[in-house]
């Protein structure tokens, strides 16, 4: 049907935005995201993409432009990394509270100080509680497809979606990508219908101050207070769980590629030991799984695709037969442990899955993590678990202190 093209993750992201016929793009350059928006500005300049490309002076303004444009009904796109994402943090909250279906790529990069331009996931993981759906990609094919998913998900539940993928590891690495045909994307992705309209004959104040209590508006209709609006935001996030799965299923049917909805599995059918990981490190870990399987270890993997909403039930189901679990992740919640390990343990609380769990913080600031190192860490953990060391604090892989 379609041929594979060799391209970087950033090229795949830009191409996906074009295929989704975005109408407004506003972004500010930051490594390793820059080539996404450079490519998009080329598309707009050459007339390949009919969109408004708004040049802004900061990431805060970039997301503000997207918020305004999405409010009046445009399909919008932006992308950023690390300090750029953190600079727009206030508007990250605003976009979710305003219930706007913005899609933003976060090309994952570590956060200073000290400066780093290299990959980990501290930037997006630290935005966990902003009300954005967060989807993590394992390879470049998943980037192009997930952005198409993201628009469809976002405009059904009226929540913004952050499509996260690892800087350099994916953003600047070339791999084969099957480009979805434009006419199929058009069929898959209906136009965005906004929930608010700007109409000068019928003026509204959008997102005014709300009081702690519910109270009638000037027409006497009882309106929600701040807390009701927050409840609805969380309810939309719960609704998104199903929408993400249905969207993935529909995409798989039409395009022949199934990325898993909220999670994906590898060699999990007869596994007793499970690796849980997120992003490209999960992809790398599949090679370690192959190695250990050859050594006779009954090991499989569960990749987390959706970090928010967190797939509690799906993880419980996938890990039902686990005798031990090892988590690899590229972020740390300082003073505790890796965020994924922490969330996973919380999700398993109250279930029948009461098994040893080791977690590894790995690859911070771009430190390389390869399959043989992951395999070695797994062997190490399995030995320790056999010796009764069941729940130690997070290990820092390849950190020499």
């Amino acid at each position: 049907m379609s041929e594979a093209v060799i391209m970087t993750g950033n090229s795949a992201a830009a191409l996906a935005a074009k295929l989704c016929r975005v109408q407004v793009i506003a972004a500010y350059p930051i490594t390793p995201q820059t080539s996404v928006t450079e490519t998009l500005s080329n598309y707009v300049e050459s007339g390949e993409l009919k969109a408004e490309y708004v040049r802004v002076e900061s990431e805060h303004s970039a997301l503000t432009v997207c918020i305004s444009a999405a409010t009046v009904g445009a399909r919008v796109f932006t992308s950023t990394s690390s300090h750029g994402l953190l600079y727009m943090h206030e508007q990250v909250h605003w976009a979710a509270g305003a219930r706007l279906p913005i899609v933003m790529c976060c090309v994952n990069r570590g956060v200073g100080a000290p400066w780093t331009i290299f990959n980990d996931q501290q930037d997006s993981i630290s935005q966990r509680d902003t009300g954005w759906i967060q989807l993590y990609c394992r390879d470049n094919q998943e980037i192009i497809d997930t952005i198409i998913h993201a628009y469809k998900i976002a405009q059904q539940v009226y929540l913004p979606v952050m499509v996260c993928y690892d800087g350099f590891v994916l953003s600047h690495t070339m791999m084969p990508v099957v480009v979805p045909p434009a006419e199929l994307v058009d069929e898959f992705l209906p136009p965005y219908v906004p929930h608010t309209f700007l109409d000068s004959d019928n003026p509204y104040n959008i997102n005014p101050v709300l009081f702690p209590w519910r109270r009638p508006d000037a027409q006497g209709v009882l309106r929600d207070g701040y807390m009701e609006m927050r409840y609805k935001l969380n309810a939309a996030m719960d609704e998104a769980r199903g929408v993400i799965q249905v969207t993935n299923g529909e995409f798989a049917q039409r395009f022949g590629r199934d990325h898993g909805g909220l999670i994906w599995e590898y060699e999990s059918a007869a596994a007793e030991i499970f690796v849980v990981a997120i992003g490209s490190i999960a992809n790398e870990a599949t090679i370690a799984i192959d190695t250990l399987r050859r050594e006779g270890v009954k090991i499989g993997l569960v990749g987390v695709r959706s970090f928010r909403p967190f797939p509690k039930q799906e993880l419980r189901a996938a890990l039902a037969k686990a005798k031990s679990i090892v988590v690899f992740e590229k972020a740390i919640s300082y003073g505790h442990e890796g965020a994924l390990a922490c969330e996973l343990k919380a999700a398993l609380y109250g279930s029948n899955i009461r098994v040893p769990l080791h977690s590894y913080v790995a690859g911070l600031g771009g430190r390389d993590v390869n399959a043989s190192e992951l395999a070695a860490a797994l062997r190490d953990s399995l030995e320790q678990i056999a010796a009764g060391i069941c729940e130690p604090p997070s290990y820092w892989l390849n950190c020499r202190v």
Partner: protein
Amino acid sequence: MEETNKLLDRDENICAMSKPAPGEAGRTGDWRDLKPVIDDRKCVPVIRNKPSCFLCWLYCPEGVVSAGFPIKIDYDYCKGCGICAEECPAKAISMVEEDK
């Protein structure tokens, strides 16, 4: 908007919205501690009986002063900031304690 919501079977208030209308933020007059009271015997437009001065009307940040003869203040929404009393060149407005 209502049509879209019907179409989508959606809550009309997915995000917070308000229509511009008097009292949209409630009867803000009950925020008031001090109430501006105009003494018509000192008020310049009343004395001259023609449009003049109206600085209280001009400066009121809430738009609750009506320029007329006499000048009227809408106490439902006057927050009692006292700017009118401060600006009145004839010292015709005094801020008095609310009884309640």
